[in-house]
């Protein structure tokens, strides 16, 4: 795809505005507002001037070829990149109008508010119950055993896992199937009552049935959460998301309603990517 001069990335200033006019979700409050975000690994700029407004209670998918910056951008939304040495952020990310890179921000509280689910499920080597209860315990979010049990049950139900594990809450989480482990990680993220769920390729290591369950879950969870999902699987983005952002070489090329992106994208580059001409 790339030529000597490189394809021209058109001005993006009008894209979000167009999207805003067309969407039925346009009247929802903005939950995450990234403004002119640049991100550097050492001297390398991995994200270039990203501005995007993500609205409440919808699913937004980030798509793009490997190395386009979609996971990096996702990780800037709860400052998960902070733990990587030599990284630097410029610009702002507002969540509920508060700049998460501003002074005095409690990063632990931020990550509780914006929970994350990773590509590879990573349950702790503990029981099912203790995995979900973990965040509640370390944050002192349950005052007694019955409240704790109630929250664990509620989270497992939200993650569509309760019926499968209710009789073996004391079994090791590591004995569960891959799909169950991933839903357990979602339950663990939900237990501390976040309002944003950041999912980084949550189904890429799962078989089609387990993938379908995760997709169903995403569909159900958006009623209560703002969800951002990174996926290299375009069909998955098409199926589960309301909005899609296409990244390429660290830039946000197009951000619009998912049906628009997959039926009539505004940018030639997006068209070439979704039709499989590159990437």
């Amino acid at each position, binding site marked *: 795809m790339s030529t000597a001069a490189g394809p021209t990335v058109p001005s993006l200033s009008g894209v979000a505005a167009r999207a805003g006019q067309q969407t039925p979700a346009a009247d929802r409050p903005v939950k995450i507002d990234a403004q002119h975000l640049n991100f550097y690994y050492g001297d390398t700029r991995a994200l270039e001037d990203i501005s995007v407004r993500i609205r409440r209670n919808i699913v937004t998918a980030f798509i793009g070829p490997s190395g386009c910056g979609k996971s990096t951008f996702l990780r800037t939304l709860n400052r998960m990149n902070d733990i990587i040495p030599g990284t630097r952020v410029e610009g702002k990310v507002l969540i509920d109008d508060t700049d998460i890179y501003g002074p005095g921000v409690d990063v632990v509280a931020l990550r509780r508010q914006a929970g994350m689910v990773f590509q590879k499920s990573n349950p702790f080597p503990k029981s099912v119950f203790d995995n979900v209860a973990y965040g509640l315990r370390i944050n002192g979010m349950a005052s007694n055993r019955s409240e704790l049990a109630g929250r664990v049950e509620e989270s497992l139900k939200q993650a569509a896992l309760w019926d499968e594990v209710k009789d073996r809450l004391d079994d090791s989480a590591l004995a569960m199937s891959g799909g169950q482990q991933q839903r357990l990680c979602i339950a663990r993220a939900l237990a501390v009552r976040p309002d944003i769920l950041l999912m980084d390729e949550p189904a890429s290591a799962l078989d*089609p*049935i387990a993938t*379908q369950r995760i*997709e*169903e879950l995403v*569909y159900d969870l958006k009623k209560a959460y703002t969800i951002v999902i990174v996926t290299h699987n375009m*069909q998955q983005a*098409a*199926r589960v998301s309301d909005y899609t952002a296409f990244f390429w070489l660290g830039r946000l090329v197009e951000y619009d309603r*998912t*049906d628009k992106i*997959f*039926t009539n994208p505004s940018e030639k580059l997006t068209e070439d990517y979704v039709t499989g001409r590159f990437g």
Partner: protein
Amino acid sequence: MEQRVRHFQEELDALQARLLEMGGLAEERVRVAIQGLVQREPALIERVMRGDEPLNELHIEVDSRCFTLLALYQPMATDLRAIVAAVKINTDLERVGDLAVNIAEAARRYVTHAPVKKLIDIPQMGDIAQTMLRDALDSFVRRDTRLAQQVLNEDDRLDGLKTQVFRELLTYMLHDPTTVEPALDLILISRQLERIGDHATNIAEDVIFMVSALDVRHHPPAPISE
């Protein structure tokens, strides 16, 4: 995968509901047009001539839904056939709405003349066409190929009545040239009803393809079962 993705199923159900709504509107328009003709009631005829908008809006909406479903879900097998069938049924139903308008236009002219004869075959054709339409859509909803086949069989009756109407009116026209104009309108109406039957037939063929992946178009008619 045995169980379809639930929200895809919800979208398919919504699509089907819209098609049924269209079918109901189309059938109603045919019914009112024929009623206006038989009762020589200009208000009914006008209602058909001016009321095509809801059907046209649904036509666009259904196409848009199908387009989005194809793009976002990449349906396979039965699901793919269902959506392709929906696209075609949509076109058929919209055309039925247009044909109802054509009937109303001819009826409006016809009622300005003295009746050529008592209308018997044309109301019967109207009933058959409406039943075919209704059965075709029922067969779509119920995935019922037997009912769809019944619709295909009914089409012959409609064609036969059209020929009968033509022959009979020809004798009137030969006998009395002043009947030529109104009789031609009746012939036109019978022609529109026969075409409505053709659209119901198309829908039934699409249902058979959707359910069993059998393409029964352009084949000799199946024997009518006892």
